[in-house]
């Protein structure tokens, strides 16, 4: 034997090898099952937690983000936080609560710049195209504007005022001779930065930014808006309205 013999703790019998292996497999299998359940459960993001601008879709984000916090440290406004154990966001991943500190929509997007993994996708070119969520005027019973008062704060703080959020005039039926200015969010422009939610003066904001999958409805794939199709086609798609013979109930 040479002195370079590799270190071997002890020779294992095949039986012991199999026992050891199956014990390991069982124990770890149990752990894996628990962990898989926990992982599945923590894959859904709570409604008040928003991802940084440019973040991949939640599913891809959880596969990509290594929880390094470089985005958190890059954010000059302390907007982003890393989720802690038992918080309603996957442990260690960055999020922000617009109600606490909204995203200030930095033009150079430092959080995206800092992310080494692509979890915050480099594909987002302008912060104005970010889709962190969507503002929704959730409570029309407390929003001051919907009661005919002029608050307008959410509209005025919006970085994309008159694009992402506008005031739509409605008749105030209560007084009969005033107008109501209803804050109206446009999903194509709203970045979900959360400034409106943050600025709303109510103790609990009437307007809130929600993650897109919660905020948006979805049309069935087969659905077509007749008027859009008509515009696209430059005319009605059916030559003439079908006039089916009227059928009256039989007898008298």
């Amino acid at each position, binding site marked *: *034997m*040479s*002195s*370079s*013999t*590799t*270190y*071997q*703790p002890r020779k294992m019998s095949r039986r012991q090898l199999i026992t*050891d292996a199956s*014990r*390991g*497999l069982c*124990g*770890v299998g149990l*752990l*894996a099952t628990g*962990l*898989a359940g*926990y*992982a*599945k459960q*923590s*894959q859904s993001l709570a409604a008040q937690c928003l991802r940084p601008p440019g973040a991949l879709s939640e*599913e*891809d984000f*959880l*596969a*990509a983000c*290594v*929880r*390094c*916090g*470089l985005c*958190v*440290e*890059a954010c000059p406004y302390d907007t982003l*936080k*890393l989720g*802690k*154990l*038992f*918080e309603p966001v*996957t*442990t*260690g991943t960055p999020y922000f609560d617009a109600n606490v500190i909204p995203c200030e929509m930095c033009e150079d997007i430092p959080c995206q710049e*800092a*992310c*080494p*993994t*692509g*979890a915050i996708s*480099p594909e987002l070119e302008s912060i104005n195209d970010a889709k962190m969520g969507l503002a929704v005027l959730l409570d029309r019973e407390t929003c001051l504007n919907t009661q005919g008062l002029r608050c307008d704060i959410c509209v005025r703080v919006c970085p994309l005022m008159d694009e992402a959020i506008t005031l739509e005039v409605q008749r105030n039926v209560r007084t009969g001779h005033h107008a109501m200015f209803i804050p109206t969010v446009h999903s194509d422009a709203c970045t979900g930065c959360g400034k409106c939610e943050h600025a709303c003066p109510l103790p609990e904001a009437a307007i809130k930014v929600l993650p897109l999958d919660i905020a948006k409805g979805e049309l069935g794939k087969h659905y077509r808006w007749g008027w859009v199709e008509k515009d696209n086609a430059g005319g009605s798609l059916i030559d003439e309205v079908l006039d089916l013979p009227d059928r009256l109930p039989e007898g008298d």
Partner: protein
Amino acid sequence: MKYPVGKEAIEEKGWFLAHRFLLLRRFVQLGVLALFLAGPLFGLWIIKGNLSSSLFLDVVPMTDPFVALQAFAAGHLLETTAIIGAVIIISFYFLLGGRVFCSWVCPVNMISDAAHWLRRKLKIRTSTKLSRKTRFWVLAMALVLPIGLGTMAWELINPVSMFHRGVIFGMGAGWIVLVGIFLFDLLLVEQGWCGHICPHGAFYNVLGRYSPIKVSATNRDKCHKCMDCFAVCPEPQVLKMPLFGENKGFSPVIKSADCTNCARCIDVCSKDVFKITTILPNKAEV
């Protein structure tokens, strides 16, 4: 054991020499934490991020390869920065002997060492049997689960990342996990976490298998079997053959990748049996 562990070494070499690697190691461990903390605390941005991924002096990216692999298994190919970072870290720990991460950098090591120390002080001998191979099963699990789930499941509970992240970004309820590890190591399984379960350690074990830097029982003929090195070593099984296996033809080099290169055995040996060597000249000698 008639003496408390290490007493002989202290008498022979003096307290400082009998603790120099321990002190150096704590200095490095805390120093690494301090470097990461200097940014958020004092605006001194030498290094940003945390052990999972970081940026040194705004230029050099570093990414934990185990975490990077989990992302890959979850179906995401990292951007170049993170991949370069992983290659840098892989080369670093490959050269130094993978589990150098465990003993010189990982913050959980301090918890594990504390539990081990307290065990000795309180003379707790009971320990539940658990195979030291378990960690490789856990490692496999941590790399397989993301394939099915599409998310880095292990990172939800990985105490190594959680501890380091917690120190820098706020611990939240994460301390529960750390207290859990301490109690587990203290009361249930000796060296339970680091020696049996941690897949992070298992990963660096695999990475460091053929590293050139090893500890060696070079002067094993001087050993007078006080067994102090066995008492302090976090992986005592690695010592047996290099120390006592001469007549069976075993080299004095501790080749097992379980060895964390912590060099505590060097500290604690009153006869200076151990030293840090490289594999290369040793091979030439034979």
